């Protein structure tokens, strides 16, 4: 007799013997789920006189909100920036595989590409709910092409663009469509960027600063126009300087409008950012830290040659080789366990660390609490995207997307809408 059915007939599941992340703390509490949402058991008890249909014993494990990856370029051989013959199939494959890493929602990311790629790919990467088939697509992250040439990183120079007027016309000319777009990374020092930032923010698209030569005042102006994220802090931007903090200075800027938070992505794979730099950022502005994988198509793949957007890279074993050359870049070989190089350069180009690895590495490197590490992968990205009323938390009424982890923060089970979609 689950309830007096005054609200719903649907079955109720109660997860017991678990510690759940609630109010920023891990607490010994049960988690109740009904119809894909987290249920308030007190209301169920007093209003509906209901109780659970089935109980799941979590054997003292941790339950955290499902991880949200807002920067992922592909994986398992799929490159989101390629207009393959089966774009949707490709996204679906990645979406399914990343369930193993505890990711329940993600933003497929497109690096700087020619206009026809955008026109072809964007309509195919639809926003959709997650489920047993895979993690949910929250929207596309367009990383480029309105970025700085000097700080383009792995992005191909010939497809970089500038704004003519920065308005909707520019954006539509390049991208073709803005439905299904959740985020855009751009360089605010480009002329007329303010108009673009306004236009995008006004449509609910999160504007992120990255691949940029902007100084702090340009970055602050961009924030005032609506920008709210920094793409992979430290990478592809001017380094912090004590008289010219650059974009990094946004972490402690006093010109952020009241009530707003500037969030920043960090690739906590042990390579893109030195642990000491990770710690400095975290300590300066812990509430804004968002873990991202920036994973490339090689993530999850065996050794060989691969493409990233419009360029070619080689992986052999766990190390990177320059295409066509026989020697390893010895200065860097010992660190490229989870990363690789673009042919002919020493530029990092995305990582192959998985989100759960990033959570573990962040915790070890920063010495932060388990709660902080988990929130950096769930609550903070949800807050940045403005969806924390339904994702990224275990509050009553939110979507029941969560992960079951053991004390080493290894993912054991993944749930979407209250349904188990993966188990180890």
């Amino acid at each position, binding site marked *: 007799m689950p309830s007096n059915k005054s609200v719903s007939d649907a079955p109720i599941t109660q997860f017991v013997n678990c510690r759940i992340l609630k109010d920023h703390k891990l607490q010994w509490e*049960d988690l109740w789920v009904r119809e894909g949402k987290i249920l308030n058991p007190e209301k169920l*008890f*007093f209003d509906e006189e209901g109780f659970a249909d089935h109980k799941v014993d979590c054997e003292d494990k941790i339950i955290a909100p499902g991880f949200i990856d807002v920067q992922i370029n592909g994986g398992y051989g799929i490159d989101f920036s390629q207009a393959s013959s089966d774009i949707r199939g490709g996204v679906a494959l990645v979406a399914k595989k990343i369930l193993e890493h505890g990711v329940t929602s993600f933003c497929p990311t497109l690096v700087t590409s020619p206009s026809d790629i955008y026109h072809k790919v964007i309509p195919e990467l639809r926003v959709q709910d997650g489920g047993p088939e895979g993690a949910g697509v929250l929207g596309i992250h367009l990383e480029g092409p309105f970025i700085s040439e000097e700080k383009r990183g792995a992005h191909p120079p010939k497809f970089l663009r500038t704004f003519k007027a920065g308005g909707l016309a520019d954006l539509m000319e390049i991208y073709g469509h803005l439905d299904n777009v959740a985020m855009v990374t751009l360089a605010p020092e480009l002329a007329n960027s303010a108009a673009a930032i306004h236009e995008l923010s006004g449509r609910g698209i999160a504007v992120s600063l990255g691949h940029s030569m902007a100084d702090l005042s340009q970055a602050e102006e961009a924030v005032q126009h609506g920008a709210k994220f920094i793409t992979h802090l430290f990478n592809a931007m001017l380094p912090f300087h004590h008289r010219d903090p650059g974009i990094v200075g946004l972490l402690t800027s006093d010109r952020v409008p009241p009530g707003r938070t500037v969030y920043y992505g960090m690739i906590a794979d042990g390579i893109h950012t030195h642990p000491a730099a990770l710690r400095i950022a975290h300590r300066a502005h812990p509430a804004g830290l968002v873990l991202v994988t920036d994973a490339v198509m090689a993530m999850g793949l065996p050794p060989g040659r691969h493409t990233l957007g419009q360029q070619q890279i080689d992986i052999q074993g766990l190390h990177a080789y320059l295409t066509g050359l026989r020697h390893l870049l010895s200065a860097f070989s010992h660190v490229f366990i989870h990363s690789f190089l673009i042919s002919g350069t020493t530029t990092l180009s995305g990582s192959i660390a998985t989100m759960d690895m990033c959570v573990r590495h962040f915790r070890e490197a920063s010495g932060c609490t388990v709660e902080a590490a988990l929130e950096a992968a769930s609550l903070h990205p949800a807050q940045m995207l403005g969806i924390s009323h339904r994702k990224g938390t275990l509050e009553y009424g939110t979507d029941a997307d969560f992960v079951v982890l053991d004390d080493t923060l290894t993912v054991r089970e993944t749930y979407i809408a209250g349904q188990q979609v993966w188990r180890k």
Partner: protein
Amino acid sequence: MRLVILDDYDLASEWAAKYIRNRIVQFKPTADRYFTLGLPTGSTPLGCYRKLIEYHKNGDLSFKFVKTFNMDEYVGLPRDHPESYHSYMWNNFFKHIDIEPQNTHILDGNASDLQAECAAFEQQITAAGGIELFVGGIGPDGHIAFNEPGSSLVSRTRVKTLAKDTIVANARFFGNDLSKVPTMTLTVGVGTVMDAREVMILITGAHKAFALYKAIEEGVNHMWTVSAFQQHPRTIFVCDEDATLELRVKTVKYFKGLMHVHNQLVEPMLSVKDYID
């Protein structure tokens, strides 16, 4: 009365919990014959609730065939407010045990007709066959439930306005903002509790000592409403040393001397496991 004196708060809480456990297990409640339990809120019974939850988790005690009736609830406080007595009972007791929601009864402080709500509560108690064991506490002013000094000793469930002292004392739960503290409550009457077949009053702490003295060593007086239980055939007062500080040495020695008799009520500890066929 029985005056059971334990050394400290934890031991007093444990004794009380053991007693309740033995009473329920011995009663062998079934779907046709529920055990009806009256319950208090506040800081005093928290230790007792923790022990009862422990017994339940060990499989020794089940609340499946227990009906509960709480003593009181604030008027006008949203039911899901963290300080409401509904929240208290859910968080400190109900969510940890196997009690069925329809077997719990707490006065609804947001009912549209408060008097009707109180009358209905009395009827629910009658319909359940009366209360087998009513557990309560005592206020520093000697009140039982919210029967403030001056309450009739034959009173029934009704609306009561809180005394200024009580409101000030409660302010700490409402961010020290007096304007946020409820001023009215629904409470069982002294008479309602007197109707129970057995009453157990938990009293711990030195700040309750004077009230205990007034309740058991002075006369029956509506200014110290717990004193009414001097005229109840089966009352147990469970307290710690500190609560006895205002009593006569003679009283304390007498009842301490009876502990071996009192302990027969809690030893051996009974378990539902012994009765499962």
